[in-house]
């Protein structure tokens, strides 16, 4: 299984029946296809849809119906459309249960950087800065190291932040960490990884959950 799908499959276990969920663009969006069929969950799209359905068939294709990644989608039974202020009212107001977002860097106190690399073209943060503060539980999914093999889990983020102390749980291809009052805690070693490997590839300081390994 490829690394990204391994992360996605673990992230899907965070989804509970009955939840209202926002999935970020990219890897998090892949989680939508892995949600158990007997679960009733409603996926929110920041541009104004609660209840994202599968991609349309050619016949169903509708330019007036897209997701936050600007892809054409459908709406499920029970879906609702609304304007952008309403959309972020439900996000900021704490009505969304879970957000799964991508990351560039996460720090040991739960800071997240995922919107800009200085020196590269400015694209913008979209809704990420609103999501990290409003949603009840923010989970970040990302590869443990970058293309140069360097840890993306830092003592302090080197990139400009999306939010401070906003990440509740981080899922990588090697490990799962929780961010608690006592700091960052390793709670799971992913299949195929070892504790030594995780320690070598993690710049941030962390403790190990009691009883793990």
């Amino acid at each position, binding site marked *: 299984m490829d690394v990204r799908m391994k992360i996605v499959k673990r992230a899907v276990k965070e989804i509970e029946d009955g939840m209202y969920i926002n999935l970020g663009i990219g890897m998090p969006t892949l989680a939508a296809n892995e949600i158990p069929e007997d679960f009733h969950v409603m996926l929110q*799209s*920041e*541009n*104004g*849809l609660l209840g994202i359905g*599968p*991609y*349309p*068939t*050619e016949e169903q*294709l*509708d*330019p*007036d*119906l*897209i*997701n936050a*990644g*600007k*892809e*054409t*989608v459908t*709406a499920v039974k029970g879906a609702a*459309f*609304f*304007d*952008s*202020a309403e*959309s*972020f009212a439900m*996000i*900021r107001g704490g009505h969304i249960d879970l957000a799964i977002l991508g990351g560039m860097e996460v720090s040991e106190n739960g*800071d997240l950087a995922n919107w800009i690399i200085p020196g590269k*073209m*400015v*694209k*913008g*943060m*979209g*809704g*990420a*800065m*609103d999501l990290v*503060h*409003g949603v009840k539980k923010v989970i970040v999914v990302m590869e443990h190291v970058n293309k140069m093999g360097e840890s993306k889990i830092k003592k302090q983020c080197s990139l*400009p*932040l*999306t*939010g*401070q102390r906003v990440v509740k749980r981080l899922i990588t291809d090697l490990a799962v960490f929780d961010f608690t009052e006592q700091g960052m805690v390793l709670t799971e070693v992913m299949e195929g990884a070892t504790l030594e490997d995780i320690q070598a590839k993690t710049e941030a300081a962390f403790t190990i959950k009691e009883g793990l390994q």
Partner: protein
Amino acid sequence: MAVNKVMQSFSEAIADIGDANTLIVGGFGLCGIPEKSIMALRDRGTKDLTVVSNNCGVDNWGLGLLLAGKQIKKMVSSYVGENKIFETQYLSGELEVELVPQGTLAERIRAGGAGIPAFFTQSGVGTPIAEGKEQRVFDGRTYIMERGIKGDFALVKAWKADTMGNLVFRKTSRNFNPLAAMAGKITIAEVEEIVQLGELDPDEIHTPGIYVKRVLLGSNYEKRIERKTVRAVIG
């Protein structure tokens, strides 16, 4: 109050938009953009515009058309990553950019239209967005102050209107349009269908006509799709 706000010509409807005006423009990506008003503005050549809109179109469509003509001086947006001309003009310093978190942008436009000069939000705390902004602590949490936005004009796209400018939007093309409609001193709405007074059920109206000054019927909407994603039918 004009009972009939319907105008026949897009070029007439946008004629009093002046150089250096601030425009609030509805749409998300290319979905729900006022494509006819934008093209009329391109044809007129109005310049030095400040444009408040979630995105800035693509190179050859939507607000990208105004960029190509160097008609925009400043963009206020949450995401501008789909546009090569944008990149060139931004890097050369011709184009000024203010990036605003999407929810903050929506609320700033809503607030502007609702007579609220400023509000506090957590979005952006501890990030470059907070620099220079007033901070306050409420219930143990830090918030930053953001200002409401008003425009000299707002350009919006709706699905249906009646002759008084009551608007109905369709699916996710609603997005920023109802907010933009509130925040323009003069709001110009273009639609796919104009119906007679009384034909819209008052319960179905998304934007009451009080916010809308001019209504225009557009034809042959292109509604370009940025990312066409489809699935195969099995069987």
